[in-house]
């Protein structure tokens, strides 16, 4: 249970308001025409939207985990946060190895491991 306050108010309510606000921004980011803004940064609207969505997803994620799931402010918060973060390494490995690789023919050793001067 929460034993702290956010801006002097109840943390659950504050968190709830905050989440609603962020979600509204997300929906707006998709709905609004950002192509001019994107053009000024020499990129496409899709990229801008994706960036906004990713950046907003992070605080939302943290707010839910920290306040609703009591990973902040409780006596057991620290150890439970560590527990929750434990799979991070394995998640990164899976994303790198499965999500971000592609099948390919072996047309030579990868460049980064061919210094060119080794040999027996």
């Amino acid at each position, binding site marked *: *249970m929460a034993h702290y306050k956010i801006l002097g108010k109840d943390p*659950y309510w504050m*968190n*709830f308001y905050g*989440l*609603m606000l962020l*979600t509204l921004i*997300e*929906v707006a980011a*998709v*709905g609004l025409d950002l192509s001019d803004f994107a053009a000024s940064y020499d990129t496409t609207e*899709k990229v801008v*939207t*994706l960036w906004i*969505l*990713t950046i*907003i*997803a992070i605080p*939302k*994620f943290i707010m*839910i*985990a920290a306040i*609703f*799931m*009591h990973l902040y402010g409780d*006596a*057991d918060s620290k*150890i*439970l946060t560590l*527990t*929750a973060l*434990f*799979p991070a390494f*394995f*998640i990164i490995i*899976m*994303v790198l190895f*499965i*999500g*971000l*690789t*592609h099948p390919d023919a072996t047309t030579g050793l990868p460049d980064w491991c061919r210094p060119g001067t080794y040999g027996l």
Partner: protein
Amino acid sequence: MSDHDDHHAPQPWGPHDWHHGAPHNSFSPLFLSMGVAISLFGLAAAWDYGTYNPGHIPTILLGLLVVGFSMFIWWRQDISFDGHYDPISTGTPFRGIQVRKVATWVFLMSEMMVFTSLFSTYMRYRLGIENCGTVFERGMFDPVTNPTGWQEGVAVTCFEPASHLIASSWWHLAPGAVNTFALILSSFTVVQALRYAKMPDLDEEARRKKVYRYLASTWCLAVLFLTLKMVEWFVGFYVPEISFIGLHEHDIVSLVDEGYTINADHYQHHSYIDEATGAHMVANIQVSASLFYVTTGTHGAHVAGGIIGLTYMTFKAWKGLYTPANAVSIEYFGLYWHFVDLIWVLVFPFFYLY
């Protein structure tokens, strides 16, 4: 003939004697496994590579019945639980925390890996298969000037994100957006239920009402979530005329009716029409549709599982059986429920918006 417990025979069906450490036999695991096996068997019998054999639907129903029966046994044994023997950790790093709270977190670790697998699949395909929009922009095929272009009538294999349909109009996005708010709201109601159940200086009737109402509203929001999902996938809806905001009467077509299905090997979209010639680009989008339905469907299945748990908890709350002593069991459910909400925070932008 069970031997070592001197004071009572284990009751495999009835309520638990929550005496600490007494063997509490249960038929529930046996029946649950049996039911799951029967359902999976029936499911595989009822569909074979998309061919539907309705004769096997009773098998699935039988399986679900057995599962339901086992849940009933489980709950019957649980409902008398008043929190007095909730086991507490003794091992160093977790000392003092409820054992089942730790178990819930450990369970969430494996859930994280489930969704990571799904997202890895998504990334692999999203990055590995060319986007349909990109293919379309390359223009129509011409043996000399545009050899990589698309041809009228020949399906291109490409990736068509559902967001192309969903984010194309506010009304299409509406069910998903409402769902986002519904889930956040339901996270909030669960945590409120926990707060009031724990509040020590509340009289019993007031607590019963608060907890019961908050849990019931969570239940309603979860059902709303699934309903809107079904509307968005299969049903579609009607938009009335509201003249002062310039809205005209029309129907929002569901994703399936738009042709966005797992069997869509000749998918068409109104934006894939060549302006000069009026030719349609047709696409094979089965992989992207499968990804969309299975990933959001897995999330939906988690919500459905939550509804089953909530049904029991709402009933228990209605009976007034939550007290500050056993309120932490709402927290166990709440952790799961917030986690489902967290996943939606990721699913929504990547499957509905981007």
